[in-house]
């Protein structure tokens, strides 16, 4: 299964969409990315917004399939904590959790990641420690493994200041190399908005025998 087939299975009807793309001589995700939404909509018998969303998903998938698997494992396990004088802590709070995310604060946290996280209201160490999830990874385009690592660094920074929430549970079974403490989502605006937007860019699911993708 190549990337194009994967995309068709993830966000469309699989074989039917794949066949239509190949008939239109679209052979890879890169070619799909370059297609215009109007032409794609025509090829897939779909609406232009659906085609645009499909291209957007293709772009994200390209990023994920090409992305490195995460920061090197030999990186220090506890993030370095900048001195109080050098960090731009909001005056309202001096806790580690309230510290604003900055490039280089944790291994793998670069300027692009900071900007993408900030656009989804993840601006502080506390928010990063609580927000890591599949939905956020998909929306920001940050590889899930990288996001998990960043979140782990954030939790360790909090733990170093005695602010972590210890709650390891069976929800950690997917962590391959080490257990990450499970942090339940706070009941707040962020969790609710995530639930509402979890399928934001997923093309509508068709009923069994009909729909825009065949």
């Amino acid at each position, binding site marked *: *299964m*190549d990337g194009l*087939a*994967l995309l068709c*299975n*993830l*966000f469309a*009807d*699989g*074989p*039917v969409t*794949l*066949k239509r793309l190949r008939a239109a001589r679209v052979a890879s995700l890169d070619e799909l990315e370059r297609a215009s939404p109007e032409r794609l909509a025509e090829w897939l018998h779909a609406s232009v917004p659906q085609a645009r969303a499909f291209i957007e998903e293709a772009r994200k*998938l390209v990023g*994920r*399939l090409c992305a490195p698997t995460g920061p090197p494992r030999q990186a220090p396990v506890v993030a370095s904590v900048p001195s109080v004088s050098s960090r731009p802590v909001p005056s309202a709070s001096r806790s580690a959790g309230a510290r604003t995310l900055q490039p280089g604060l944790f291994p793998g946290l670069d300027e692009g990641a900071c900007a993408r996280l900030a656009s989804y209201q993840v601006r502080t160490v506390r928010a990063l420690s609580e927000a890591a999830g*599949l*939905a956020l990874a*998909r929306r920001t385009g940050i590889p*899930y493994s990288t996001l998990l690592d960043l979140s782990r660094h954030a939790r360790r920074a909090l733990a170093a200041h005695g602010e972590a929430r210890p709650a390891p549970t069976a929800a950690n*079974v*997917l962590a391959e190399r080490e257990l990450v403490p499970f942090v339940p989502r706070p009941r707040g605006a962020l969790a609710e908005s995530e639930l509402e937007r*979890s*399928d934001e860019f*997923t093309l509508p*699911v*068709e009923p*069994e*025998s009909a729909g825009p993708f*065949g």
Partner: protein
Amino acid sequence: MKTLALVNQKGGCGKTTAAVNLAGALAARGQRVCLVDLDPQAHATMALSVAVERGESSIADVLLRGVPLREAMRSAPGGITLVPATLELGELEESAVRTLQPERLLASAMRALDADLDFALLDCPPRADGVLTANALRACDVAVLVVEISAFALQGAIQALRVFDELALDMDARFEVRVLGTLFDRRTEMARELLIGTQARFAGRLFDTVIHQSTRLREAVASGMPVQVLDPACRAARDFEALAEEVCAPGILAPV
């Protein structure tokens, strides 16, 4: 004749459903298909509403008593030829200890059918190390590892691949391994992430077609017919049609 064995040590991952409906899809394309039920639970036999009456032969007679495979063949819905199973097949595990090269029984029996069929599909029991699975792996050209798109199933599939490697080495068998994803529900984010993980793990060995979760498939099994007969326009039928197309494509079963 191409022989495909549908295998996985895990039960409930869709082996029998895939075997029955892939056989149906291949038959619908005009291929001559024989489905051999190698599971003592006889689920493929039941899924095609075939009952083995007293005096009729089954795969157990072929493997335990040397009855020719042709005598055990039956016509089933959807243009499929079925070699049914019975509970008696379970005895093969015991009798194997008294048999020379018990893992070669099926391959020997199938040799006579080579010119009469385009495809033989072997529906294996849910274990990777038994003599029945060994027979299937010995007889097949391609072992299709049926993987449910779920976290634990993926781990099980990786273990199964290791067992296959050892079996292939022990038996000096030559078969390719391909992977088929099943029970996929793309509406859930977890399933989508797991499919990405499965693709990353198996890459070119993973069929382009993934079988989606479908009520129609369950209804087809309950009705004793392949889904192509029950509802040829449904998405499940289209999934298997696409899979059949992949299987029939030239070179698709060549080494990846």
